[in-house]
């Protein structure tokens, strides 16, 4: 039944609205309507007295509907609905008319037009509200388990925090060890901690935690379901080794004759074909790289019919021969496991652009490498044991140039944003070079030093004052080979002249991007990402951990490149969000969902094709669409495509929307 006793509350929003819109006139005009029982203005409707005004008015005038004309409903729709609910009015009988962003702000130069537009917006909202139904939230059961995708520092922190609260947590990591990029680093700024020392306790905690189920060398294959009820398929990639038997003794590594580039050392070193990710890997298990293993390549070619094996041929099985526990079986043990979880955290981290992407800066030369690769050369656990050596000839460099902003702040050739961590890690690397080789000359070409963190600016000054690092302000234009050395041509914008220096090695602080696997995972989870591979949060300021998909959260550098401090904080933050979600036995869900009228529905399936959430199925018996309320997000794509208006979103029915548009367009 259409509402007849509507209350309209017009907010001044200080001067935000009242400075442009004549709120008194709006209240008078709206008050003239027959269906409006009460119309008033107030300076801040979102303030406590403002909410009290709604509560009191609902009771006093026995209102059956409320329109609050204020800011965007994303900000205060909930506030106003709760206020009305406290007075006993169904919250879905409250609508927001956005006269701030739609009338006051865009028409500051024309107050009269803004006032007329505000009146029209409120009238349209009243027309829409009049056909609103009273609704109750939908309750959905919750599976009390969580999934964390990505075993870097953010993912591990999130998994540990959730597991500590008693919730079973599944941690999936695509590489053969957890630890992520942080485990590759030499030392951390600004405290110069050794990451291996501070991270291994966390890694061991993850491995030993009774509430954490760890899947390394695994990938998320498929995600189905909805907030509180996800079904996840996880692919355990083929290791060709039985990890239940493998003790991580490393005997096999000593005998393996085949080699490939080390993933962990980022091509700065070779590893054997059967390998353990690194010496402190968690779990410490061996696996075989199919593409370089002599035996597996041979078997593959035989299978494809490319070669015919002679009888009695003995093919390499050196690793299996020395393996005491008989763990190496050469069998493809790829496996898909299914897990059910209630919430998901995506912490897939970052990658840096390769040096090869910048040939003008010498990316084509072996001694011009990325900062992340240089981390391995500086790491005490790395291939050069902490004393950097040139990849080309193994010579210890006497001079090194660091180049900042390679690809960053460069929308034409790289990315438009500042990669945020490069300034600090480059300063750190410059310091560490001075630690390792006191006499080495270090040149640091920067555009700006961005040291916005606790202790960061002081760290920069230490590098300048105590360590003897040469800072030159200006971007490098080219790096080319002159004899045995690399000539770096830059500019000093402070003295206004070109600067040239010959060095033995060049380290490029290349731009950070989202992990290359993130796009696929995002598609599976139906969460948005930008063109650089960063996952999009719901609100940059106020909902940085949430995604538009309920129950899916983001943490760490997957959202945007950030340092360890921030990644750990975000990991804990996302864990808190998951704990809050899983602490309830049942979840409440907005009931503004699609509803099918089976009398009209012809079962054509157009709505099913449009649904981004796989919420619609066709009932095979009755041949009509059926909406899964738990999956439906109420987006309305189905409704817009329905040829017969059989499927409509509750409280956004066609009559309501068209009527509101008529009023807005002044078609009476």
């Amino acid at each position: 039944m259409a509402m007849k006793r509507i209350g309209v509350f017009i907010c001044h929003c200080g001067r935000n609205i009242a400075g442009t819109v004549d709120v008194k006139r709006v209240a008078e005009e709206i008050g003239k309507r027959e269906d409006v029982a009460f119309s008033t203005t107030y300076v801040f409707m979102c303030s406590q007295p403002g909410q009290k005004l709604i509560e009191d008015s609902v009771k006093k005038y026995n209102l059956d509907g409320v329109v609050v004309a204020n800011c965007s409903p994303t900000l205060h729709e909930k506030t106003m609905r709760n206020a009305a609910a406290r007075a006993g009015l169904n919250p879905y009988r409250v609508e927001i008319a956005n006269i701030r962003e739609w009338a006051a702000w865009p028409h500051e130069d024309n107050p009269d037009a803004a006032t007329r537009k505000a009146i029209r917006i409120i009238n349209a909202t009243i027309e829409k509200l009049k056909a609103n139904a009273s609704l109750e939230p939908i309750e959905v059961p919750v599976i009390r388990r969580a999934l964390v995708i990505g075993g870097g520092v953010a993912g591990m922190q999130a998994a540990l925090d959730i597991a500590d609260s008693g919730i079973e947590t599944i941690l999936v990591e695509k590489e053969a060890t957890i630890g992520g990029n942080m485990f590759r680093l030499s030392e951390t700024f600004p405290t110069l901690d050794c990451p291996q020392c501070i991270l291994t306790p966390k890694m061991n905690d993850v491995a030993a935690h009774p509430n954490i189920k760890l899947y390394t060398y695994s990938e998320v294959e498929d995600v189905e379901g909805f907030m509180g009820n996800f079904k996840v398929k996880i692919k355990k990639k083929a290791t060709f080794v039985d990890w239940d038997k493998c003790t991580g003794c490393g005997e096999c590594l000593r005998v393996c004759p085949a080699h490939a580039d080390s993933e962990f050392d980022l091509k700065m070193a070779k590893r054997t074909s059967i390998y353990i990710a690194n010496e402190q890997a968690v779990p410490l298990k061996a696996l075989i790289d199919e593409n370089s293993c002599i035996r597996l390549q041979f078997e593959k070619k035989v299978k494809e019919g490319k070669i015919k094996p002679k009888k009695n041929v003995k093919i390499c099985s050196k690793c299996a021969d020395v393996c005491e526990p008989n763990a190496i079986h050469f069998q493809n043990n790829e496996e898909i496991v299914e897990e059910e979880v209630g919430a998901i955290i995506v912490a897939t981290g970052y990658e840096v652009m390769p040096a090869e992407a910048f040939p003008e800066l010498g990316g084509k030369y072996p001694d011009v490498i990325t900062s992340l690769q240089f981390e391995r050369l500086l790491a005490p656990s790395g291939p050069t044991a902490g004393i950097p050596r040139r990849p080309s000839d193994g010579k210890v460099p006497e001079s090194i140039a660091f180049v900042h902003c390679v690809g960053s702040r460069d929308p034409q050739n790289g990315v438009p944003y500042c990669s945020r961590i490069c300034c600090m890690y480059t300063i750190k690397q410059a310091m560490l070079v001075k630690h390792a080789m006191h006499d080495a000359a270090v040149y640091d070409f920067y555009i700006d030093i961005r040291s916005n963190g606790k202790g960061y600016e002081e760290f920069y000054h230490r590098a300048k004052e105590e360590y003897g690092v040469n800072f030159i302000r200006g971007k490098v234009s080219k790096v080319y080979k002159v004899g045995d050395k690399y000539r770096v041509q830059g500019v000093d914008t402070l003295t206004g002249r070109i600067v040239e220096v010959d060095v033995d090695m060049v380290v490029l602080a290349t731009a950070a991007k989202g992990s290359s696997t993130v796009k696929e995972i995002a598609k599976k989870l139906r969460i948005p990402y930008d063109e650089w591979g960063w996952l999009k949060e719901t609100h940059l300021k106020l909902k940085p951990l949430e995604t538009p998909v309920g129950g899916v959260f983001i943490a760490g550098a997957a959202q945007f490149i950030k340092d360890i401090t921030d990644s750990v904080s975000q990991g804990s933050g996302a864990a808190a969000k998951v704990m809050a979600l899983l602490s309830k036995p049942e979840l409440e869900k907005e009931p503004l969902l699609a509803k099918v009228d089976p009398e009209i529905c012809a079962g054509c399936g157009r709505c099913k094709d449009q649904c981004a959430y796989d919420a619609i199925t066709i009932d095979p018996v009755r041949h009509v669409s059926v909406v899964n309320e738990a999956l439906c997000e109420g987006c309305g794509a189905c409704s817009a495509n329905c040829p017969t208006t059989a499927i409509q979103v509750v409280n956004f029915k066609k009559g309501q929307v068209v009527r509101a548009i008529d009023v807005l367009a002044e078609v009476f």
Partner: protein
Amino acid sequence: MKYTIKKDPHEDERVQKIIEISGQNIFSCYQCGRCSSGCPMAEFMDVLPNQVFMFLQEGDVDTLLNAKTPWICAACFTCTVRCPVGLDLAAVMEAIRELQLRKNYDYVDPYKVEDREELPPIAMVSNFRKFTP
């Protein structure tokens, strides 16, 4: 203009000498520019005070020895008072002058000063103290 860094400026002998004479770690300057923006003589200088430090940090002492700036510096200490990292710029300017003066180089020849009979004696004394060995 092009400048080639031949060796680590930290190792440059003349830079070291300036550090020794002035007692200032010229490498702690981070180029905020506050010295230049407040210098009362800056508009007459060919190299701004902050650029003096950049030249030093690049080991380019030659440019500074040929520049007018160290001689124009009035040693008013405005920059020294204002420097955020506490550098005594006036002392560095003095050190650059010293480097030149110790070669027995007279920046000003008192006999060539016009109307020197008219000048107050204190001006001549200051001139000798600052511009001659």
